[in-house]
């Protein structure tokens, strides 16, 4: 596929993260995550086409299974069980969030980080984009009060890192990737379990309720 197409994919993904920042409904958040994961698998497909390594197909399969099917199922069940249509609010209101988002994006494009965004000069834009996605997902975790949004934030951080390494040509051997994805899988399970525990204990998924452990 051409670099333009990849860039297009990446920009969509970038948009999903922006959406993650703005969306209020949990189901939409999950949806956005699914889109992200699908994009990931597309990009991986591209690298398969380039290298022709069969194993990568397995990786793609895992990605699809874990991130597109199983993970969202868990989240859905969580949402249904606890009947929380709307995720709790953010710290910053949408305009301010957007301002900060743009700031963070500029940061990612700044010359300071040129060396790592220039690992493969031809992919400079893509790398900077995915780097800004990393920062944005971090910002998502900081900004969101909902436990679910934090989970999604961590996952999208992971996705953006994958993106980055794919474009930087740093993919590991598929075995390792599968291992990583397995980790992610377990992580999703545990985090959803904890999310429901939080709901049981605190009556909401608002993590700011949890401030008993001070000093």
């Amino acid at each position, binding site marked *: 596929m051409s670099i333009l197409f990849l860039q297009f994919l990446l920009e969509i993904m970038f948009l999903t993260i922006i959406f993650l920042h703005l969306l209020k409904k949990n189901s939409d958040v999950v949806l956005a995550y699914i889109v992200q994961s699908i994009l990931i698998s597309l990009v991986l497909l591209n690298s398969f086409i380039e290298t022709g390594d069969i*194993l990568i197909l397995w990786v793609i399969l895992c990605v699809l299974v874990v991130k597109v099917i199983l993970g969202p199922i868990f989240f859905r069940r969580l949402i249904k069980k606890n009947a929380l249509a709307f995720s709790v609010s953010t710290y910053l209101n949408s305009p301010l969030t957007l301002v900060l988002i743009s700031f963070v994006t500029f940061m990612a494009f700044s010359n300071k980080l040129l060396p*790592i965004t220039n690992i493969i000069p031809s992919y400079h834009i893509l790398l900077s984009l995915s780097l800004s996605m990393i920062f944005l997902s971090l910002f998502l975790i900081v900004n969101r009060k909902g436990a679910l949004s934090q989970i999604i934030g961590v996952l999208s951080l992971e996705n953006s*890192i994958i993106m980055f390494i794919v474009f*930087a040509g740093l993919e590991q051997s*598929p075995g390792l990737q599968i291992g990583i994805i397995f*980790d992610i899988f377990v992580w999703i399970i*545990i985090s959803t379990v*904890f999310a429901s525990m939080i709901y049981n*204990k605190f009556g909401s998924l608002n993590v700011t309720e949890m401030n008993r452990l001070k000093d």
Partner: protein
Amino acid sequence: MEIFFIITLLVLISLITILLKKRIVVEVISLFGSSVVLFLSFVIALKISYTGTDYLLFNFFSIDSLGAIIIMIISMIGFGANIYSIPFFRKETEKNIIGFSRVKQYFIFLNLFLASMFLAASSSNPILSWIFIEATTLSTAFLISFYNKPSSVEAAWKYLIINSVGLLLGFFGMLLYFTSISSLHGNGLISWDLLINNVSHLDPIIAKIAFVFILIGFGTKVGFVPMHTWKPDAYSKAPPPLGALLSGALLPIAFFMILKFKIITDMVTGPLFTKNLLIFFGLISIALASLIMLNSKNYKRLLAYSSIENAGIMALGFGFGGIGVLGAILHMIYHSFVKSVMFFSSGNLLLKYNSDKIDNIKGALEVLPVTSISFIIGFLIVTGVPPFGIFLTKVNILSAGIKIYPIITFVALFFMSIVFIAFLKHISNMFFSEKDDDMVKEKNNIWLTITPIIFIVLLIVLSFYIPPFLSNLINNSALIY
């Protein structure tokens, strides 16, 4: 082969435990396993020490001398944790705080945790190590929320999220190092040695950025300020033996990772960059921890902050370099043991007083003499009072520091004495105070106190005599790192 045995054994035990119905069997098996693991890990250490070469096993595992030391630490702390856990949880079931199923769950996760730690410490491949460190997070998350109280869930959640974020950043940093390897290698396993061999292709600035990510990522696991925030919560909510493992075994492993990347970075950028970063984190960790300790209200959190401070001291040691490295490695060993002593003793206090608030502990010296004495000795050791080992390691580190940064050394020394004062304040409130009348002195339960005592004896021996094979390992690793 031994490391392979160790891991398979631990995994097997945790699998078997799922099926078991009788408590005593669970305990026996786990204890047996940990003792075997202890033996095997010493075999590994001896091999490495006497052959003088790294321990390699079908290019999956490679253990160098520092790795050997850490593996020994893990196995010993794990063994101690096992010995201690059995009477501790029996007590708790007596007071029906928990039931058998939970105990079973505990042992399952404990062994998984141990296994993943061994893997992380011994695997020859950074990514694998990363995967297994992530696995430690996952396996301990449930143990932290063990008591299933709101606060423990909160602690577990914070632990999970913060560590995952941190580790992902670490992962990113780790991958940046792979830019040195032209993507032809893409599909092969990239081992540490490969990284070191290809270091010439590594762009220094990338290396710097990568090290920043690594330091923040694994620093979260180590608990450097300001990434330390999960530590007090997790330590205070986890069962005491787990606290011992977290602070005694997991911390060194994370530190180990940082050090491995430090070597690679130093080859590119020269040592000064990483050293300064380590010194920076070390100093703020010591300062902040000491200040918070001055009036903390919960003795398990106190221990957590103390281990943050000690991580800072180690960081200083590695940052100062020279003889400081020797000191830091020794400090790592001593700290692991003394911290587990203190966690076990705090567990006994918890059992007796049913509270982890410092104000609720009164006249412990009369109520629990043996435990109190072991706690006090632990305090003396961990704050670096002569003649115990940590004093010497501190002197090592500071005397390395005075050569380069006198001011920083002075500040560090200053905050170390604040740590002592803070600790002493709480100690004298807890132990030398008048006990409440309803508190009755009960006869000392030997099983609960044996582990701390053994470790104290071990510590005192180690502070005066380092067995040759160990000193051999220490010196080798001091040469490398």
